[in-house]
């Protein structure tokens, strides 16, 4: 019911060559899809275009059959899309608690909002200890946790994650991905996970999509992609 469909999406910056060129992609309901590709392949661009932060030159984005193409970012979010951007985007001037409440504002009324935030504190223990701390005082791992928790508070149908592992210790990454996997299984959340950390991403994902030269050049079950040396060599460089 919340299938994310991308139809002939073309996105570029300025009047340069398009970064995404007529991209077709379908992310079926439920499960984790890894979005892979070399540096500069356009993963971030795709996620930002899906949320409307970067305008598309042409093509459509549909969520559960509804066309999101003309909508501003905040309305796409209110239709069930969430993005945890690269570099995390924690609001440094607000406290952990305020960041979380902000995430749930459009979704929940006051009492339910509080409950949803408390749920996140159960899920991410370290955040509970730092409720009153300002965003700028958090460590990188705590920020990533907060950004993820803040996205989950709104109970999105589709969660877009841009390089959550960037700059984090392997153990923290494993924890985050574990939470993600567990949440996806429990709630039917769909996750599109852009990662350079191919091994980590494919180990939690059900499917893998490889972007190259503006197109999706491979779209396979994750296990197959991980096991196929030719594909890895061709598109992932190892």
């Amino acid at each position, binding site marked *: 019911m919340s299938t994310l469909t991308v139809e002939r999406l073309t996105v570029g910056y300025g009047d340069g060559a398009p970064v995404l060129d007529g991209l077709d992609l379908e992310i079926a309901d439920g499960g984790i899809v890894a979005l892979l590709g070399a540096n500069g392949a356009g993963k971030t661009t795709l996620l930002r275009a899906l949320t409307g932060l970067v305008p598309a030159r042409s093509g459509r984005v549909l969520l559960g059959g509804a066309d999101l193409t003309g909508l501003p970012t905040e309305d796409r979010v209110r239709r069930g899309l969430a993005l945890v*951007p690269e570099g995390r985007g924690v*609001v*440094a001037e607000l406290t952990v608690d305020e960041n979380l409440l*902000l995430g749930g504002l*459009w979704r929940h009324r006051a009492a339910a909002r509080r409950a949803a935030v408390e749920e996140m504190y159960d899920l991410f223990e370290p955040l509970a200890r730092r409720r009153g701390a300002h965003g700028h005082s958090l460590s990188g791992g705590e920020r990533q946790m907060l950004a993820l928790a803040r996205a989950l508070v709104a109970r999105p149908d589709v969660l877009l994650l841009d390089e959550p592992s960037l700059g984090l210790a392997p153990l923290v990454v494993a924890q985050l991905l574990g939470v993600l996997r567990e949440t996806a299984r429990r709630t039917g959340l769909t996750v599109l996970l852009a990662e350079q950390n191919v091994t980590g991403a494919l180990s939690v994902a059900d499917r893998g999509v490889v972007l190259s030269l503006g197109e999706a050049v491979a779209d396979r079950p994750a296990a197959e992609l991980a096991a196929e040396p030719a594909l890895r060599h061709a598109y992932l460089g190892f």
Partner: protein
Amino acid sequence: MDRLVFLLSSGLARGAVLALFALSLVIVWRAARVVNFAQAAMAIAAVYVAFAITAASGSYWLGLIGGLATGALLGAAVEAGLMRRVPHTTPLPGMIVAIGLVMILQSGLSIAFGPQHRTMRPPFSERPFDLGGVPVLSPYELFVLVVAALVMGGLALLFNRTSLGLQLRASAFAPETSRLLGVRVPRMVTVGWMLSVATAALAALLLVPTELGLNPFAADLLFVNAFAVAVIGGLDSPAGALAAGIGVGILSSLVTGYVSASAAPLAVLAVLTAVLLLRPGGLVAAGKARSA
């Protein structure tokens, strides 16, 4: 001693009005990252409406409410109709548009109402209370202080304790992140302008009865001083605006009383210069990077 107490108390009232107007500049700066040079002209336009309502109804209070509402509407109209359409890549276009707006509003008011000062009667007496022979605070000054305190307290509650306030702050600090969390940022900018201009209108409304009267330029000096106050306080900080407003109000009252009225602006300028030299970000500088 009597003189000192009198000067301090009237400086306090003057400072409250300054702080209120400076706060209005801080609010719009935080919401939209513009220094609204049209703030005084917009506030005075609202005061004209308040004046007309009071004249027609005979009630100061109806005029006050009408003036505040006009300020809010004017803020919304200027933001949605004008400022939103100006490119935001640099601050300059917004400033130029604001300056153009000043000219239009002030000429419009002059054409409509003439340049003369219209006397605005305060709702309370301006004769100081007599405390054992020492004149302190007139009832009107007391009223100004109470209103300013209530409004500032109310704004503080609004910004820090309500979900609207949370969205206003988030939109100001991190517009893109806020949109990603479903906050209607353009609407928050409009609300910021409404709150700001209504607050400025209130400050002008409180000021005018203590000065020569209402004319299209009646809040210009208030704007200049309040702008200095906002910069001294650190343009981003409501608490800074409050502290600097009270401080500057008392300072210029003391200088006026002990030196001369014409030395007061120089004293304000000296403080501004000193603060900018010693703490270029203002007294309550944001300090931390606004990277996230």
